[in-house]
């Protein structure tokens, strides 16, 4: 496929790809414009062309991946020959270009469904959807205006990359064949099935938020503030289901494959996909209230939250891809100065949404004018001021709209005992929680906003002597590191209130309810919840200061129980209506599981080695355990033994056996293997700590074991009198370029998980000389000092001058100054302690120190005394270890997460419930339309 100057380069694909991207952009733009003019048929055709072009672009890119065309920069960056092709999907959306294409893929598919529905809203809804597509297409254009690049070209060739232009190899005719036979490859951390399923789910969720958004805009545009709700409702709940699933998948991924020891870290990337979901949930519930009402409840909020959900998706894109987060997130990458474009994208749709909030053409034009003025500031580089001014304009507009266009459209008389009132309260609480999370996550953005005002703030701060203003003027606020202080302390009470609302509201009827009926059912559910909570409090020993979490546990149990009661007593048999309460049960269980498993997590690997290098009393972060190979240590309710390591491909696995601490009982005839020898029990007995104690009395040696005997034999390991339970194999994935990453291994059981991961392990063999001696370690000793070399305890007992009688046999001359240092070595072998003495010499002859290397036979240690200072009586020693005696060791952390399976059960129920609800909603809509 080579044409022109270069051989082995698929230039045709590059041309075709770029043409298709341009076609996608123009057809989307054309479709939007046609729909504005009301030319439905043309608009439809244009959109279908756009969808086709997008799918072809994706197809071409996949073609390049499968054909390993490394002359293309995108392929080179995310693929290499070593990578198994089942991860090609992960590689496809490994970069920004692929991410946008994935988003566009889903967006097109959803839009095609909207086209199929072909309702009266189509022209306006499609205008919005086509505009969104046009903006997304711009992100793939990769056109240069001077120095400024618009979008990122997915078909960029390596030789065209700005950093490579002008390099000598770009002129070589067959450069592609010579230099690009392999690529850089995808970060190994991303080469797993999670990376294949999580991004598509998440992006489908993001795409889904744009449909209700488009309907809301259409409604505002048309002047009909309510009619758009009914057709948009199934889409909203579809979004809730899919996006929620996507967010939870992220948590499951973190738990299963990452080693930060949990499933949620309140990291900006996590938060920015959670927040749109929360706002969508609020919007969807408000839409649900208002779909058929003559006089709506909280109509402005309904419209506004619906718009906000999609805008927050754009904000999320901005936060995570523009690099604005800087040092606050390990996920923040800066790629090709994309910040201004993402900002323009976000601000444009912000403006669009707020324009339509206004009712008259005049007001809209004024708004557009002001917004464009503010946008211009973006182009001259004043991003912070522009955005700030822009936001002020939008805020004012929203307020005007609320007071003006939406005046008197909402019901003021909703009864306190009505479903709509409490759903509104619940939705509001969810949005407040979302605002708090956004606030906390956006601290780096606030720093950018404060920057232009740094001068004035500083002066005013000095004048009023205000610390507050002075801190602001430094525009360097950092998010607090303690999650309890920054997130939990606010989210937990809010969540408690929300779940109380979930519990109560399911029983309330629209317009009002009989208090007696509701109270009875709720009381029953509350009792159930109280019993569960009290049981938990006792079993898991909750302290008084943990009251907020206990309250949340009660609230979630209450919500789950209440909704379960509802299904059982009211909806029995009417499976169609189970969706909503089931989803709420699921949501409640999810949070219940999350709280109990993290609040009562138990780090059983607390360090037991003494404080040899203790620092401050403040610092007591001993959560890791050092395990030497073959050693057995107690960890929580287990004895653990690090047995061996083995390598498989790019992974190094560390096998750790877990034993019970209760003494094992052996019966006559049991067969065990100890130190590769087989023994048969001759009595019934309980095991001692060491095999040697039991061997004579209780065991018969089997010199010629049969195959069956060998197969039946259990291992007998010193220090583990208890029964063998299981083996965990946490691993480290080796990657030279990106850094090694540890992967956990978890033991799942019904009531808890035991999660273990490697904190440190030696991955490169230590450097030795020709004879296998490791480089010398220099230390200082005084009489009485002791120190560990590997597992040997070395102590200096005494130092004496060599007696004259002994000099000749040690090869010493009379004029030599000679001191002998008496060391004691203590080690362990086969469960017993062994001792030996070593006596290296320190010889000074004619003012020269004669080196005397003393090899301790059989111990794999040798020393040399380098210097002796008689004034402070310190000895300087160099010690070498032989690799044969150096034992392998690892540092691990193990955590028990109680009741974590409730979390996953909740996720499953929530997903099932949401989809049942969507399906029944679609069915209802179809029936009422016919």
């Amino acid at each position: 496929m080579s044409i022109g100057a270069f051989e082995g380069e698929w230039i045709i694909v590059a041309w075709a790809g770029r043409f298709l991207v341009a076609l996608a952009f123009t057809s989307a733009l054309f479709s939007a414009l046609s729909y504005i003019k009301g030319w439905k048929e043309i608009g439809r055709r244009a959109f279908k062309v756009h969808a086709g072009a997008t799918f072809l672009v994706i197809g071409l890119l996949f073609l390049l991946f499968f054909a390993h065309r490394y002359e293309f920069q995108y392929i080179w960056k995310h693929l290499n020959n070593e990578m198994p092709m089942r991860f090609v999907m992960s590689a496809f959306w490994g970069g920004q270009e692929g991410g946008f294409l994935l988003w566009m893929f889903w967006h097109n598919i959803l839009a095609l469904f909207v086209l199929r529905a072909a309702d009266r809203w189509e022209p306006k809804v499609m205008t919005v959807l086509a505009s969104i597509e046009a903006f997304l297409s711009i992100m793939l254009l990769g056109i240069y205006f001077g120095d400024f690049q618009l979008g990122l070209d997915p078909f960029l060739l390596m030789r065209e990359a700005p950093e490579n232009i002008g390099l000598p190899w770009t002129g070589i005719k067959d450069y592609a064949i010579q230099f690009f036979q392999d690529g850089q490859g995808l970060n190994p951390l991303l080469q797993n099935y999670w990376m294949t399923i999580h991004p598509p789910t998440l992006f489908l969720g993001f795409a889904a938020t744009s449909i209700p958004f488009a309907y809301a805009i259409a409604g505002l545009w048309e002047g009909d503030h309510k009619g758009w709700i009914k057709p948009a409702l199934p889409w909203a709940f579809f979004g809730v289901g899919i996006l929620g699933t996507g967010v939870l998948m992220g948590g499951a991924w973190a738990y299963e494959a990452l080693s930060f020891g949990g499933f949620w870290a309140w990291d900006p990337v996590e938060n920015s996909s959670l927040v749109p979901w929360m706002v969508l949930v609020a919007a969807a519930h408000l839409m649900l209230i208002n779909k058929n009402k003559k006089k709506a409840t909280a109509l402005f909020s309904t419209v506004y939250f619906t718009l906000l959900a999609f805008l927050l998706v754009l904000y999320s894109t901005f936060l995570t891809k523009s690099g604005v987060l800087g040092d606050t997130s390990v996920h923040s990458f800066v790629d090709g100065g994309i910040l201004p474009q993402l900002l323009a994208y976000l601000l444009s749709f912000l403006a669009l949404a707020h324009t339509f909030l206004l009712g008259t053409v005049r007001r809209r034009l004024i708004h557009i004018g002001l917004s464009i003025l503010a946008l211009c500031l973006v182009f001259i580089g004043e991003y912070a001021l522009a955005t700030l001014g822009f936001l002020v304009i939008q805020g004012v507009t929203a307020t005007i709209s609320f007071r003006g266009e939406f005046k008197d459209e909402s019901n003021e008389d909703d009864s306190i005992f009505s479903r709509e009132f409490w759903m509104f309260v619940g939705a509001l609480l969810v949005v407040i929680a979302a605002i708090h999370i956004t606030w906390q996550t956006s601290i780096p953005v606030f720093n950018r906003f404060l920057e232009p005002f740094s001068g004035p703030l500083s002066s005013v701060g000095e004048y009023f002597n205000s610390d507050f203003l002075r801190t602001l003027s430094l525009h360097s606020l950092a998010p607090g590191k303690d999650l309890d202080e920054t997130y939990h302390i606010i989210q937990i009470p809010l969540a408690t209130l929300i779940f109380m609302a979930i519990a109560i509201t399911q029983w309330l009827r629209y317009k009002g309810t009989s208090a007696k009926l509701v109270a009875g059912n709720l009381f029953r559910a509350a009792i159930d919840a109280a019993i569960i909570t009290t049981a938990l409090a006792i079993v898991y020993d909750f302290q008084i200061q943990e009251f907020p979490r206990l309250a949340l546990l009660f609230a979630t149990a209450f919500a789950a129980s209440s909704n379960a009661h509802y299904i059982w007593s009211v909806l029995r048999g009417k499976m169609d209506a189970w969706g909503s309460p089931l989803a709420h049960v699921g949501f409640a269980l999810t949070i219940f599981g999350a709280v109990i498993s993290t609040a009562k997590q138990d780090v059983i690997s607390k360090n037991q080695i003494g404080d040899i290098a203790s620092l401050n009393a403040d610092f007591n972060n001993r959560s890791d355990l050092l395990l030497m190979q073959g050693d057995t240590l107690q960890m929580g309710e287990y004895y653990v033994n690090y047995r061996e390591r083995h390598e498989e491909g790019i992974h190094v696995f560390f096998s750790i056996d877990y034993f019970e601490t209760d003494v094992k009982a052996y019966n006559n005839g049991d067969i065990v293997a100890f130190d590769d020898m087989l023994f048969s029990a001759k009595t019934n007995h309980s095991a001692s700590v060491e095999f040697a104690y039991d061997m004579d009395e209780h065991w018969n040696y089997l010199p010629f074991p049969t195959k069956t005997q060998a197969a039946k034999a259990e291992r007998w390991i010193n220090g583990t009198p208890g029964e063998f339970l299981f083996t965990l194999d946490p691993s480290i994935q080796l990657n030279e370029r990106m850094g090694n990453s540890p992967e956990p291994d978890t033991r799942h059981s019904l009531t808890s998980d035991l999660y273990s991961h490697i904190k440190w392990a030696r991955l490169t063999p230590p450097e030795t000389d020709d004879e296998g001696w490791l480089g010398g370690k220099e230390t200082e000793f005084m009489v009485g000092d002791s120190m560990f070399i590997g597992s040997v305890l070395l102590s200096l007992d005494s130092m004496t001058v060599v007696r004259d009688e002994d000099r000749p046999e040690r090869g010493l001359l009379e004029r030599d100054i000679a001191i002998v240092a008496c060391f004691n070595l203590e080690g362990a072998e086969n469960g017993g302690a062994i001792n030996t003495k070593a006596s290296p010499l320190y010889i000074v002859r004619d003012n020269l120190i004669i080196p005397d290397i003393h090899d301790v036979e059989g111990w794999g240690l040798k020393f040399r005394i380098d210097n002796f200072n008689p004034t402070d009586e310190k000895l300087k020693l160099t010690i070498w270890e032989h690799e044969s005696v150096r034992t392998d060791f690892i540092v691990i952390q193990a955590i028990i997460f109680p009741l974590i399976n409730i979390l996953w059960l909740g996720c499953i129920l929530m997903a099932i419930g949401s989809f049942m609800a969507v399906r029944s909603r679609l069915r209802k809509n179809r029936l009422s339309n016919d």
Partner: protein
Amino acid sequence: MKRSDLIILITVSVIIGLGIYNYASMGSWANFEEAFDNSGETYSVSGFLSQDHPVVYNPEVDPGLTSFHMKDKKGKVKEVHLQLAKPQGFEQSESIVLTGKAVDGVFHATDMQMKCPSKYNNEKRLVLGTEES
């Protein structure tokens, strides 16, 4: 007062209250000079691992202590004691953020975030078949 106005008033007050509370819990960035001037206060300091000093991690002695030197953004190099096991890929990190206090000439960090070599690393140059980063 109309009910909706009351709801708005309560909501806005709650949000402002949250904002104020959150402000109080914020940490602040500092460089080494500021951190050592205000010894004992907790700061977040960002910088780079100093390649001129060894990274010391002796798990036999203490598996939860890694010592190294970091150069902050102003160029000041200080010794750091991090109370964690040596993280994987530490020597290859592009930048690090420490959280902790300066005590007696050493920065005692309780937490560290590392930025690993970016997948979007545009600094790789290809010179006639040999790769240099």
